[in-house]
């Protein structure tokens, strides 16, 4: 356990070191947050007060939450670190070490993302609060959100791990990434709340795993899910943690048995 904690701590410090990178990231997310808020103001300007269960303030706050969560994989996943080790063959060294390969990458990802939550997400959302009056949750809601966020981090990691493992079989990753990221952006509720979708699309989104990463935590944050609905959301997220995490571990096992690692 100590080992994984140290891995996470170093990963945390690594992202913290690139100050200009995360400042640029915050500004980018804030730009898009502001842009979409202005669009919502114009959309609600035509007279509607509540659309698909969202008031203007809720729609704006939702936009800022999803922008704030970008740095933890809410909008797209990247496939740089792990995939590169597979391509270069360096993955062999990591596999030989006396640790859990899955656990190593999980702690690396968590270390990085805990930093992102504390720094990037918080500051991005703060800009939304200051300039667009984004919603400030109560202490109870914040607590519920924290639980939901941890579950979201795990689902997001499992998805990213699965996509990265595809490098064991596929030479070209752009296709997989394009497809997965398109699905993630739409069906997670990252671009717009799932409640805005036409009914068939919304139903589809509700049975896919992606909403566990972005849509559900954002709704919990806004206090739209309370009581039984909140418990259901948590249960659904937990379900996807187990399914996606299990698939990731299973795929890793298959990869270990079947694949000849290149280079070296």
């Amino acid at each position, binding site marked *: 356990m100590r080992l994984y904690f140290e891995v996470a701590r170093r990963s945390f410090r690594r992202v913290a070191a690139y100050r200009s990178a995360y400042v640029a990231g915050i500004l980018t997310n804030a730009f*898009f947050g502001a*842009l979409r808020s202005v669009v919502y103001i114009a959309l609600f300007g*035509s007279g509607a007060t509540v659309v698909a269960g969202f008031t203007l303030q809720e729609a704006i706050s939702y936009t800022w939450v999803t922008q704030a969560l970008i740095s933890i994989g809410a909008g797209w996943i990247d496939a740089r670190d792990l995939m590169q080790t597979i391509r270069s063959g360096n993955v062999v060294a990591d596999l030989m070490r006396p640790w859990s390969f899955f656990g190593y990458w999980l702690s690396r990802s968590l270390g990085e993302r805990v930093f992102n939550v504390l720094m990037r997400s918080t500051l991005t959302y703060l800009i939304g609060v200051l300039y667009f009056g984004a919603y400030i949750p109560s202490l109870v809601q914040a607590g519920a959100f924290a639980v939901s966020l941890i579950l979201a981090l795990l689902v997001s990691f499992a998805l990213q791990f699965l996509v990265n493992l595809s490098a064991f079989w596929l030479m*070209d990753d752009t296709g997989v990434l394009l*497809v997965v990221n*398109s699905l993630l952006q739409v069906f997670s509720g990252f671009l717009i709340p799932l409640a805005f*979708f036409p009914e068939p699309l919304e139903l589809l989104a509700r049975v896919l795993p992606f909403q566990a990463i972005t849509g559900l935590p954002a709704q919990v944050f806004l206090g739209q899910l309370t009581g039984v609905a909140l418990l259901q959301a948590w249960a659904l997220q937990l379900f996807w943690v187990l399914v996606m995490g299990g698939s990731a571990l299973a795929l890793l096992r298959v990869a270990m048995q079947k694949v000849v690692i290149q280079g070296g």
Partner: protein
Amino acid sequence: MVRLYFLLIGARIRAQMQYKVSFLINLVGFMLLTGLEFGVVAVLLLRFGSVGGWSLYEVALLYGLTSLALGLAEMIGRGFDSPFEQMMVQGSFDSILVRPLGTLFQVFTSDFQLRRLGRCFQAIAVLVYALWNLPIVWSLANVVLLLLTIVAGTLIYLALFLIGATICFWTIKTPEVMNVLIFGGEEMTGYPLSIYSSWMRTLFLSVVPLGFVNYPTALWLLNRTDPYGLPAWLAWCSLLVALLFCGVAVAFWRLGVSHYTSTGS
């Protein structure tokens, strides 16, 4: 020069066509991914009815124009993106300087991404959908205006790519703010300019003239008036503005080249 351009670009395209499956996956991938952009706009407008008084079809016209311009610029101008950044990082821009051709021309021809047609196809589909459903009178003048605007929009995006590349002479890497301007600008111009605050409207009609990729032309074609009194004839100035902006970008490039110090190695 023109012959040489097509010779170089032809070689790039033949090279990309060696990997046909990869090319097709990318083409379709870009079509879907950029299709989502309009999908979101359409879903929002179906829910809300209109944005700033503009209907779904009218917004589709705006979106189609800006997306097509960006797609074309990405296809022909990506040499200013990562290939140029690589030259900066590795110091291989040195070899560009000693060849008997203009630096701008060589960097411009260093890449040509045919797969970006994916975005162009999607944009054309949206544009056709919009024009089909809108009551626009197709006089010769209107057709000419539409074509001029597409050219102008492409030039404006190209100039932005060029400016992003030029900044590399000082920073080595293209700063993220350029991506915000280009892709944020594309999303922004997908909605009528009138919904934004006055400083944003001013900024995007003057310093970064992205507004000209579609807004004045859409006003003209749809017989609309801008609520802030933007004159209608401005539609015919798009190309002029684009050329001016390109001129600024090229001048900036010259300045950048004269500041170039190799990274060595």
